[in-house]
């Protein structure tokens, strides 16, 4: 049961990360579509790319923080509770 629980928990984590990826894509889409209405110049293009990188970077950082929380607060915490019982 322990292994099945861990697999399920990792699958839930992956689903969450996937959902956050889609949300990040949506944020990029909304921002880029807004900037497309502005007059096109090099600075706007660079700003779009930088913004994309920042959002992608935030997704990766969020992914790592979520994983750390998942490992120590959920996966390993379950064992500590079992030991104390």
């Amino acid at each position, binding site marked *: 049961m322990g292994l099945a629980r861990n697999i399920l928990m990792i699958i839930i984590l992956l689903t969450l990360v996937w959902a956050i990826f889609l949300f990040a894509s949506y944020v*990029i889409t909304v921002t880029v579509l807004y900037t497309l209405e502005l007059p096109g110049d090099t600075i706007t293009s660079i700003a779009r790319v930088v913004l994309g990188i920042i959002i992608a970077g935030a997704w990766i950082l969020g*992914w790592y923080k979520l994983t750390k929380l998942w490992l120590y607060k959920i996966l390993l915490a379950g064992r500590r509770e079992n030991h104390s019982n």
Partner: protein
Amino acid sequence: MLEAIVSGLLTFFLAPAAIILGRRLEVVGVDIHKPWRPIVPKTGGLAIILGATAGMILGAHASGFQLFIPVILSCLVAASIGLVEDLREEIDPRLKPLLLIFASLPVLVLGAYSPRPLIPFLGKTRLYRVYPVLVMASYPVICNAVNSLDVLNGSALLTSIPFLIMSSVIFYMRGDLQLLILSLIFLAAAVAMLPYNMYPARTFIGNSGSLFIGAGITSIAIMGSIEVAAIIALMPQIMNEMYVLFSIRGLKSAKNIGRRPVVVENGMLAASEDPDAPITLLRMICAGIKVDERRAVYAMALISAFAAFLGFLTHILLLGG
């Protein structure tokens, strides 16, 4: 489909020769997860390289050089870097990503990419200047990510196979025969190596094998324009590499990390509870329990299969197939 059959059959029948060669040349490693710590040749990757390359050469001969030649060159560059590591010693982990950038050059120089990747909600983008940089970055990231999951018998192959099945299905649905053949060539080689690499492994695929497969997966994602589906499908590999990078704070060799993510007790794997130990996918699978190596690999494969399903779903629902 002859190309995939050739790839699979050659890999399967060349593997015993690769094992003998590994023993003769003493290109071997210790299987540290078994109580009896067997010495195993790490030359199995050579059979994959020869089998898949033969399949791709056949593909190039039958249906044109444009698709297959950049992939062959990229994969061979990555495999050569892995081979140096297998034969001599681990390359400096700060230098290795830079060397793997060279694997992207055949695709870039031969222009075998479209700088218009599909992004969910946004649709087709125009990344004419940024895309080549992303291609250069993708080879070190994906190759190292596939390599980083090669920790247990059969784990690198069983976690790569779901991506290759996903890409094959996408190309089949798209009706792109050449890309379908390319995916099937790698899939056949990976499946053919399984009997030799699964528990208890008669051979490791080595860094040459895992970097070759990593370069193949990257090339398929770029040339098949399935970048986003690939990122989703490869989440287990990417997050395994990312966890290690973040948790050990930088690029370091596994040999130089004092704390291990998992401990082995009588052939059973258990997650380290040390807060400073690297966070890996295997550590998460083994968290709080003891798992035997075989079941841990199946767990990795199941998680990869789920990620590949999410990648497929993203491609079909959000990117319009």
